[in-house]
Every structure is written in structure tokens, then in C-alpha cells.
């Protein structure tokens, strides 16, 4: 947006507030802080230290909100052609007030906990919470929250006032410190692998958490990067994007190879637990790439996606394990995986065919039903002759590749297997997206009737999407079986489908890079439905966060964090049209040509 027509008026006075908004945000903050406290976050996360003596994850769970709401209270949409005001004391005061009201909420909570006993329904109405909120100093000390929260709100409000560069430096510094703290386990392993222990010893405290000097150093370095390096990176990126033709292809290839080598080298320097984590992330990347084809490209909301994961897992288990009841051919995994592909395709067709003609939302619920039916069948006495019922199938052997044996006990070898399948999936998705069938999927996603009128066989195209998704998920299931070594119906609950959906949506529907990034961030840091992530303390809270994230993304940014260009246009069609109209471009329509399918900017 180059030609924004906006004029800026002088800043308003500190008392010229939108009082209703300030009060609403303040009360919202107070409620949210009380809710977080009663949900047990501060107490549950207190053991995880962010910066050694001064800040734990528990306090952080309370502190981020005043900051965010203090910032958000003065956020207003700057409309083109409408006069806006310069930022000044008004924003500071608004942030301060919102924060302070939130603080009042917390101190009230302390008083209430001290005087009433509501422990019967509310499990976290506990003395520990009181101690934490009052810093072990008696009820009166709870009032400290008013200045603390107010001050943080003030900082949030101040972000509007300071120059853009300072704002960016501050935000980057805060995010970097948090990220370094969250990645502690990986950084630790990395430094050991690269013989750089001294850096880590200096950066991190012995029992976890950044040291104060370490945190300061991270903050300074990242802020300095913003001040000095960011522009250069942008220039480099722009010159890369302006490359065309064969040069661009060559540059892309080099980039992919470099990233591939880096990822392939990663497990060599990491330890056991972090490698295990990488394998989990890989399994979810595979699942998410499959769902991305179904949901992101073809626009079919399949909520029973876990069914294909289950079919893959169970088929591999029955065919390879010597312990499988009923039918136990003890095939090698590499042969079994061929059967898995066939069975998964058949299941995909079988589930896909009845639902393919349904309305999109009915389809979602019916596939959810299928997902649950498949789990119930694996659990039932009827099929327990093959699947072992609730006891599942144990003793699934590793994968014998002749030269090496890949086993769950050796996550490093497992990682390469997952990596291979992920690369396969990425390549397949990439080629499919650019192909005729990929374009057909996207046309169906945008408008099924129009797509059909254009001569696309929608039924076949949608079925194909189902089958491709099913096959990718079944690979993941087969690897999962070999990795874990045993398989139970409880691994295939509907929750898995939903978590994969969250990953795809947060990452960016229809965008391969986005989906991989979404899986890496969410599954890697918070963890999967059953698998712990880097922040193990969050295991209780991750599902709450996933739910909130899903709602928030849908409301604010339905195209995801790393959006697909075309998908964004579909979702924000009206805004695009309005924008074009304001700028007088509407009559040609050529400005919205769909050339721009390149990497997200």
C-alpha cells in the first residue's frame, strides 16, 4: 500500500480517552488474569524458569496479558482518507489504567482466597496460589500487582508512542529472550554436539533458565540485529525475489539443498530426547502435509483424518509384529508399507465416496463420525481377533534395511526415515499443487459449482484429494507403529485430528512452508496430543492454548501465519475489492491477476 491518503493531527490529551473502551479492556484483563490464576497456570508453570532469579514461566503467564491489552487498548484501525491522531500521553495513560484495573482484579482474588474457601469446585483455589500472588508476604502484598500490572500496561501503551525502530527492537528483543529460553534443551544439545559448552554455561543457569547477563546479551544482540542487520536482510530478500527465470530456479535449488543439509545434519549434534522430539515433529509434519492437501488445497474439512493414521499404524503393526493375534505374517516393514498404501487408499475411497457429495459442514461431522467408528472398531471385541482390542499390538519390530536397522530406541535413525517420507510428501504436495489436478482442487475450494461448470470432474478430484491425504497419513501411522513399538486404540482419538487441523490452520492452509513451520513450532514447543514438547510444563495447558489459538486465528487471521497468496485473496476478497476501489483500480481488475504464487513475503 504505497499511496495511503492519511493526515495526522496532533496528539490528544491524556484525559481525552474512550473511557468505555478503557474500562472494558481493564475488566477483561482482570477477568483473564483471575481465570489464568484459577486455571492453575501460575502455580503449574512456576517450576520453569525463564530468567534465573527474577522471572518464572508462572509469573510470565500473568505478565504477558497486561502488556498485550495495554497495547491493544489504544490500537485503532487507520482508515485511508480518515484523519488520525499522533500518539502521545493518551496512549500511555490508557495502557497504565488498563494494567492497573487488571492488577486490582488479582489483588481482589488474593483477598477472596484468603477469606473464602471455594476449593470444592475450583481445584486451584489454593494457598499455593495465594502465596504466589502475594509473593509469600501476606494478603496485603497482593496490591503490589496494581503498580506491576499498571507499569507493564504502560510499557505496552508506550509501544505506540516510541519510534517504529525502537518498537521493533523492543519486541524482537523480548521475543528472542523467550525463544532462547524455550529452546534451552535444543541449544544445550547443540552446544554439546558442536563442543561449544562454554557459551551455554554462560547463557543458562545450571538448573535451567537464562542467567541475567545471558538474557541481557540475547536482548542486546537481537535488538542490534534489528537496528543494523534487518534492512540488509530485507534488501537481500527483495533482490532474491526479483530474480527471474533460470537464476531464480537455481537460487531456489541452492536454498532447498542448504536447508536440507542443515536439517539432515541436525540429529548428529543433538541428544536422544531432542532427537525423539524431532521424530515426533516429523510425524506431525507428514500428517499435516496430508491434511493440507485435503483441507488446504481441496477445501474439504476432514475431521476424521486420524482414521487414516490409525489404518496405517494398525496395518503396519499387524503385518510386522510377531505378537499380532489372528493374522501374523511377520513381513518386513518395507513390504508392509506397500500394503499400507493400498489399504489406506481403499479406506480413503471408502470413507470419501459416501461423503463427497455432502455439504461441506455435514462432511466434516460425518468424517468425524468415521474417525470415531474406526477407533471403536479397532477397540471392539469384533475385530480384537486381529487388532488385540484394548490391549493393542505390542512388540512391533524395527525396520531392517539390510545395512542398518531403524528402531524407536534409536531416534536418530528413525529421524532419517521420517525425513525421507517428509521430503517425499513435500515434493508430492509441491508437484501436485502446480499440476492440473492441483489447480482443479483450488478451483473446487473457491467455488464448487463454478469448477464443475468449467468441466472439472469434482467428484473424482475430491476423491483423489482424500486418497492422497490418506496415503500420507498412513505413512505417518506406519512409522509411528515402528517407532513406538506398540499400538493401542487410545493413540488414535479424535483429538489427534483436531491438533493436526490446528497445526495446518495456524501454519497457513495451502502453504507447504507454513504447514511445516506450524508443525515445528506447535508440536516442537508445546507438544502433540500425547507427546511432550520442549515446554514439558505446558502439557496440561497446551490443549487450552490450541483451542484458543484456533479461535483467534479464525477471527483475526484465517489465512494462517505463513499465508498462501491465493487463499488470502479468497478469504479477504471484500477487503481487496474495497482497497482497489479506494485506489481507483477497480475497473480493470488486472491488478488481481493470480501470478503471485511464489514464496510468501
Amino acid at each position, binding site marked *: 500500500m504505497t499511496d495511503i491518503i492519511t493526515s495526522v493531527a496532533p496528539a490528544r490529551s491524556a484525559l481525552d480517552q474512550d473511557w468505555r473502551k478503557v474500562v472494558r479492556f481493564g475488566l477483561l484483563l482482570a477477568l483473564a488474569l483471575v*481465570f489464568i490464576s*484459577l*486455571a*492453575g497456570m501460575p502455580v503449574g508453570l512456576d517450576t520453569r524458569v525463564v530468567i534465573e532469579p527474577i522471572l518464572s514461566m508462572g509469573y510470565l503467564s500473568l505478565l504477558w496479558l497486561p502488556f498485550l491489552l495495554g497495547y491493544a487498548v489504544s490500537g485503532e484501525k487507520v482508515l485511508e482518507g480518515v484523519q488520525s491522531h499522533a500518539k502521545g500521553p493518551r496512549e500511555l495513560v490508557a495502557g497504565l489504567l488498563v494494567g492497573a484495573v487488571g492488577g486490582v482484579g488479582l489483588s481482589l482474588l488474593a483477598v477472596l482466597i484468603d477469606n473464602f474457601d471455594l476449593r*470444592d*469446585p*475450583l*481445584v*486451584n483455589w489454593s494457598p499455593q496460589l495465594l502465596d504466589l500472588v502475594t509473593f509469600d508476604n501476606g494478603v496485603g502484598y497482593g496490591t503490589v500487582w496494581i503498580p506491576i500490572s499498571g507499569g507493564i500496561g504502560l510499557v505496552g501503551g508506550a509501544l505506540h508512542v516510541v519510534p517504529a525502530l525502537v518498537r521493533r527492537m523492543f519486541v524482537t528483543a523480548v521475543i528472542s529472550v523467550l525463544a532462547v529460553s524455550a529452546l534451552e534443551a535444543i541449544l544445550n544439545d547443540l552446544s554439546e554436539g558442536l563442543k561449544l559448552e562454554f557459551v551455554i554455561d554462560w547463557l543458562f543457569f545450571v538448573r535451567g533458565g537464562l542467567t541475567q547477563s545471558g538474557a541481557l546479551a540475547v536482548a542486546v544482540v537481537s535488538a542490534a540485529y534489528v537496528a543494523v542487520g534487518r534492512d540488509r536482510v530485507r534488501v537481500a530478500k527483495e533482490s532474491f525475489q526479483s530474480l527471474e527465470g533460470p537464476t531464480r530456479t537455481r537460487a531456489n535449488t541452492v536454498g532447498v539443498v542448504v536447508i536440507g543439509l542443515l536439517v539432515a545434519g541436525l540429529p548428529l549434534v543433538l541428544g536422544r530426547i531432542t532427537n525423539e522430539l524431532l521424530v515426533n515433529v516429523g510425524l506431525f509434519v507428514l500428517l499435516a502435509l496430508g491434511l493440507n492437501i485435503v483441507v488446504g488445497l481441496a*477445501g474439504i*474439512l476432514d*475431521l476424521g483424518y486420524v482414521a487414516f493414521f490409525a489404518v496405517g499404524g494398525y496395518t503396519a503393526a499387524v503385518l510386522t509384529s510377531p505378537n499380532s493375534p489372528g493374522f501374523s505374517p511377520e513381513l518386513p516393514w518395507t513390504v508392509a508399507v506397500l500394503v499400507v498404501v493400498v489399504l489406506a487408499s481403499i479406506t480413503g475411497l471408502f470413507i470419501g*465416496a*459416501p461423503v*463427497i*457429495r*455432502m*455439504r*461441506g*459442514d*455435514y462432511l*466434516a*461431522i*460425518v468424517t*468425524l*463420525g*468415521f474417525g*470415531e*467408528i474406526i477407533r*471403536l*472398531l479397532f*477397540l*471392539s*471385541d*469384533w475385530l*480384537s481377533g486381529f487388532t488385540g482390542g484394548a490391549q493393542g499390538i505390542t512388540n512391533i519390530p524395527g525396520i531392517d534395511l539390510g545395512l542398518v536397522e531403524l528402531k524407536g530406541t534409536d531416534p536418530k535413525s528413525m529421524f532419517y526415515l521420517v525425513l525421507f517420507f517428509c521430503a517425499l510428501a513435500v515434493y508430492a504436495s509441491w508437484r501436485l499443487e502446480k499440476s492440473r489436478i492441483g489447480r482443479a482442487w483450488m478451483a473446487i475450494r473457491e467455488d464448487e459449482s463454478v469448477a*464443475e461448470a468449467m468441466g472439472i470432474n469434482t*467428484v473424482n478430484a475430491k*476423491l483423489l484429494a482424500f486418497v492422497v491425504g490418506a496415503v500420507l497419513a498412513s505413512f505417518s501411522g506406519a512409522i509411528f507403529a515402528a517407532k513406538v513399538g506398540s499400538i493401542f486404540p487410545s493413540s488414535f482419538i*479424535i483429538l489427534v485430528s*483436531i491438533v493436526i*487441523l*490446528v497445526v495446518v*490452520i495456524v501454519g497457513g492452509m495451502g502453504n507447504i512452508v507454513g504447514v511445516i513451520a506450524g508443525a515445528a513450532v506447535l508440536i516442537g514447543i508445546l507438544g502433540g496430543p500425547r507427546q511432550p514438547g520442549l515446554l514439558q510444563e505446558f502439557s*496440561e*495447558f497446551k*490443549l*487450552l492454548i*490450541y*483451542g*484458543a*489459538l*484456533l*479461535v483467534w486465528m*479464525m*477471527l483475526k487471521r*484465517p489465512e494462517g501465519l505463513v499465508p498462501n497468496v491465493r487463499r488470502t485473496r*479468497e*478469504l479477504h476478497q471484500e477487503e481487496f475489492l474495497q482497497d482497489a476501489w479506494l485506489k481507483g483500480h477497480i475497473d480493470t481488475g488486472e491488478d488481481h491477476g493470480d501470478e503471485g504464487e511464489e514464496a510468501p513475503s
Partner: protein
Amino acid sequence: MRHRAAKRSRVDLFLTFLRVALTTLIVVGVFLFIMQQIDADNVFARRLNPDARALTRAQFEGLVVSGLSQGAMYGLIALGYSMVYGVLGFINFAHGEVFMVGAMTGMITSNKLADAGLWESNFLVAMLFILIVCILCSTMTAVIMERVAYRQLRGAPRLIPLITSIGVSFFIQQCSELLLGPGAKAYPRLPDWLDETWSFLGADIERTKFLVIGVAAVSMVALWYLVERTKTGKAMRAVAEDKEIASLMGIDVDRTIVTTFAVGGAMAGVAGVLWGILFGSVTSFTGFLPGIKAFSAAVVGGIGNIGGAMAGGLSIGGAESVAPLVILEPLGIPGVSQLKDAVAFLMLIFVLLVKPTGLFGERLSAEDRA
């Protein structure tokens, strides 16, 4: 189901096959069941299920009555799905959680009342009080949900609000899990006089089932009165028909939508209490399965159709209670009671295959039907 293309594709063939296969399965199952009832040593009955034993009359009555009482509960939840779908054209996936909130509130209130002694001494007054509290809480949950999550999404592509509601559902589940702690929470024991039976049309029926069906029937009549006989109800029907024209006629569309959510929430609150009476305990994940089944009930009865929702609820409840023993067991499938939930889903799929507009026809505006 639009575009019945002139040429029948393989998918159509497969669908026809599925329809025929499912119907045959049901017919054969019922036939074998009848044979088994006539004489368990019957050749037909022994053919697939060698251990066939005829159900006694009392067993069968028990199945039907428990099916109907659960069905009445599903029907109450289904109303919320059906009305919201009629008005906004999307599946409020989180409606099951509104029901769970009702059941949880009922658990908390009833335990407090049991501590105070009112639960034993004057059960019906306690029940009334619990019902009011639960209705309030569920209604509030539904209204807040609409305000926070769905209002901004009017006019968004159809799947966006559905995905949002999945997130909302997840969020409410986890909130309850974190605030109230994990695990099943028990209702206090029902007073002794409810354990006895009343005989009705020659069948002995537990009084709790009477209570459940009675409460459901009363709520249903109240809702019918609200929708068909009051101005608010008229506004709701008008908004469901066509939002734009309704607003031109001077109806506050936003307010009517909130009312719809509130009424649906109230019904779910009642259903929550009924769940407590029927099963005696509740967890944070209680809302999921009944929620999905209730949605199936709404579809089976014809979505947007209020009478249909109740009828659909009764048929889903009845089917999942009766079908395992009447259809599946005579076919020789072991451990049929585990497949109860699968039956409910299969019924949904079957109805969508055979009559996608539901048993009593859907009532949707033209734009929602697309």
C-alpha cells in the same frame, strides 16, 4: 444433492451399493431377531449367532425405555444445533460443550444442595432450583460464545465458523478441566423413592426415566410455545427464513440470533441436568459424544425443523440402545454393546445416504441450502 448427472458414475454405483447393503443388513438383522424371539433354536437364528437367546419382555422394555429417555435428552440438545443451523447456517460444534456446562453446573449445585440437606428432604424443589441455575449458566455460555466468537464471522465462508466452533469447543472443555480438575465428578445419590418403578402400559418403568422424559416433554412444549406462539418466536422464524427481509420488516437480527443461542443454550442446560440424573457423573469431556449424536439427531429429523429435532433425538437414542441387540447381535457380532456409539454414527450416515433432508424435511433458507 444437486446435479443428478445423466450418466451415473462409479461413485453413484458405490453409493447405491452402500444403500442396498446397509438396508439389507438392517432387514436381515431384524428378521433374524424376530426368528430368535419366536424360537431361539430356530435354524435362522442359530445360523450366524450360535449362542442366540431370546430377549425377555422385561429386557426389551428396559432397552426401549432407556433408549427413549436418552433420546429425549439428545433431542433437547439437538434443538440447539437445529435452531442455530436454521438461523445462521453453520454447525455450532461447541453446543455439546454448552450441554457439558449444564451438567457440570448441575453437579456443583446438587452437591451443595445435598450438603445443605435439601436434596434428600425435598427433591423436587431442589431439582427445580438446579434446573434454573443450569439453564442460566448454559444460556450465558451460549450467549457469550456467540458474542465473542461467532458475531464477527457473519458472512464468512461456511467452514470458517465451523472451525472456530471446534476451537471454542476445545477451549471450553479445557477450561472446565483446568478449573474444576480432571476426572469424573459424581452427582449425589438420588433419593430412594426414585429407584422404584411405576407401571405404565403394562411395563415397569423406573421413576428416574419418567422424570427425565417428563422434564424433556415439558421443556419441549415450552419451546414449541415460544417459537410458534410468541412474537420472539415469529422473529426467529423470520430470521431463519431470510435475514435481509426480516431486518427490513423491522426485526433486530442480531438480537434474534442471540435469543436463538440463548434458547438453544437453555435446552442444553436442561439436557445437562437430565444427563446427571441418568448417569450420575460428569467429566469435562461429557459434551463431545452426546453433542455429535445430538447433531446427528438434528440431521436425522431434518435440520432447522424443531419437531424433527425431537423426533430425531428419540430415534437416535432408541436406535443406539436397541440396534446393537436387535440387529447386530443376531448377525453374530460379538461385544455389541461396545458398538453403541458406532451405531449412532452409522444411523447418521445411513440417513444422509438415503434421505439427506432428514425424516421430516429440513427447513432452511435458500442461501443455507446451497
